[in-house]
């Protein structure tokens, strides 16, 4: 588990204290009790604070699992490095 | 009921219930939230009044500024709701958009 994944897992555990480390990695909207829209928004808030970002999306479906969040984080990291690269030409 | 009758009744209610009798000029399209007349802790009182006064049932997802944030909007919303007959066995009508 890399640093990003560990920090994301920490966010999940802050919002769903009952989740064990194993359960976090495979957490989805249907597998976790108490996963409702308020929980998702809480996760968004916690992830924003942890990673110092602003999540630019209202699409709840994209954030319906641990994987979904991880995918989003990886995408924005790629976007960042792409825009960095574009200055080098 | 005429739209203006509904508006007048709503206006009277707002003056007595939220402004405690102090009259204020509230234009029919003026935002009640923006004017500070009704805030979120008071909007449920408005809902209770509308249900009692006009015999309608206000659904949770209808409690939005689009429907309630000015006397004109409230009147239009109530009129829409009044136009729907209630089944005599008490089941709730379908909302129409």
């Amino acid at each position, binding site marked *: 588990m890399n640093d990003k994944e560990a920090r994301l897992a920490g966010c999940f555990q802050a919002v769903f204290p009952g989740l064990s480390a194993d359960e976090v990695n495979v957490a989805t909207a249907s597998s976790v009790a108490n996963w409702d829209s308020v929980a998702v928004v809480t996760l968004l808030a916690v992830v924003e604070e942890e990673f110092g970002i602003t999540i630019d999306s209202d699409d709840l479906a994209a954030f319906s699992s641990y994987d979904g969040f991880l995918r989003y984080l990886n995408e924005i990291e790629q976007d960042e490095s792409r825009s960095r690269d574009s200055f080098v030409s | 009921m005429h739209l203006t009758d509904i508006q007048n009744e709503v206006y009277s209610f707002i003056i*007595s219930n939220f*402004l405690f009798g102090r009259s204020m000029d509230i234009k029919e399209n003026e935002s009640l939230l923006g004017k*500070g007349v009704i805030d979120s802790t008071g909007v449920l009182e408005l809902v209770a009044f509308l249900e009692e006064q006009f015999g309608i049932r206000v659904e949770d997802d209808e409690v939005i500024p689009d429907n309630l944030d000015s006397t004109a909007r409230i009147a239009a919303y109530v009129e829409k709701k009044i136009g729907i007959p209630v089944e005599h066995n008490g089941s709730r009508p379908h909302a129409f958009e």
Partner: protein
Amino acid sequence: MCGIAGQLNLNGAPAERQVLDAMIGTLLHRGPDAHAVHVAGPVGLAHARLSIIDLQCGAQPMSTIDGHTWITFNGEIFNYIELREKLIAKGHRFATRSDTEVILNAYREFGEECVRHFNGQWAFAIWDERERKLFLSRDRFGVRPLFYTQVGDTFLFASEIKALLRFPEVSAEIDLKGLDQIFTFWVTVPPRTAFKNIFQLPPACSLTVAGGNVKGGQYWSISYAEAADAKNAHEDRLAEELYALLEDATAIRLRSDVPVGTYLSGGIDSTVTTALARKIADDRLRSFSITFEDAEFDERSYQQEASQFLGTQHSNVSCTSSDIARVFPQVIRHTEQPVIRTAPAPMYLLSGLVRESGFKVVLTGEGADEVLGGYDIFKEAKIRRFVGRDSGSRMRPLLLKRLYPYMQGIQRQPAAYLQHFFRVRAEDLSNPFFSHLPRWELTARLKQFFSAEVRDAVGDFDAITEIERMLPSEYYEWSYFGQAEYLEAKYLMPGYILSSQGDRMAMAHSVEGRYPFLDYRLVEFAARLPAAAKMKALDQKHLLKKAFRGRIPDSIIQRPKQPYRAPDGKCFFGLATTDYAEELLSPEVVRNSGLFDPSAVTSLVEKFKSGRASSIKDNMALVGILSTQLLVNQFVQSKSEVLAQCI
């Protein structure tokens, strides 16, 4: 712990013993054990004692052995033992074992700077005979009260306003700008009080009266600048340091020649102070709490759990809506200012229980929320900033529902309305008072009840603009979290929590409250912790919880914050109508006092009687207006009646 009062005639005329007797006579609830007056030329000092340290010899007013310096003092200097040793080493002599004498000798050694050496809670006046000066001081947080006024050449001070009003030329008139401030911030902004020309010495300030002049200054201020070493420190180490500071703060606050009890509300703060007291004192500790008939406010299961876990001997006093109505006039007689909530009333009953149980001193948990990130208003501000980052989002406002899970009304609020109420427009995000706007703007709506005369008198006075000018320049460099904590610590804590709910309610039954969380060493450490240590994600008081895990029940650590509240408007116009409330809110009486619009008040009362009123705003309006009317009735009108009788 005591009551103090005094007079200084700036023109050198002799001070009057019967004036001082009259003043101190109103403060015997603060000091039932003894009282005395000392007059020396133009100065007079009076003291009413609640004997706690050095019961035999600690009588006041007290002087240094050489008789050149006198003091009348309310409070405790908890590090008096250490200071005493230092002063003895410097050659000072002591005739008593009291902390009072330590202040005197510290003043002789350090002058006005002596206050920086004190760790405690105090309001005192020192008469320096050689310098011909009166030196007044108040503790850093405003735990103990101190009021003053000047009429002609007479300077007067006292622990409570009622003492000042005994001086014939001191008039009782409501300060309308003060009223405007209360109906915005819940408190007046010191030195202003609810009464015209009667002032309070602000917390962390001293005042010198000499050569006909009155001069004041601030000797301490709270900083929320995040400490560099704390930012990089491991959380475990910070938790250990917090624990150690709190343990010492509690230990020195157990110094007493009479037994000390604790308040145990069921919340984490008082459970922490009780746990530490239990550990240090290792005796059968007495704890006290309030229980409510109304389940919405009651916390008895947590209180019982804490008591069992910690092994205290617990008592509680039950509080119903009619109890609150019954004691409310007495409560206002002691708060000496209007209140927006009835919450002081159960505290009044609680101190009564403590007194009946034979106790004079209790430890209690106030102060933790303001420096360790406890209040909902901080969580609320954090969530609001999150919502404001994308104001077009439909999803973000949903998080506002997590704010007040215990308040049914809020849970039913539609997101769009919550968003507006909680103020997350772009311009709000850059407002220095962002965290407090929802509360202040809601409260300010109560001003719609002001009479035309009040509105005219207040004019375009803008209470918020005034305090913006008073913000220290460093404020803008602190984190948003620190800024919110500062506003609570500076305004609501001394003006309401420590006074109307704290000192005034305890002293009404001759009980002294002591606050381990307000040990200034702890406050200085805690205030400067990184925001993330205080609120991790949405977990309030994170570091405190970490420091005490295992030492207090887990259920208390994990429970959501339940702010201390009591039933409000329905106490007066619920199942039954309270007679004095009906009278004081009747059109004739309201018109007579001139502060509120009679028909608006009548409509409000009707709304309560009909059962339609339930909003936060309506409850605040009723309590705010009723308490103001009670204040006028008890202080303004009765004084003119008393004066009329004298003519």
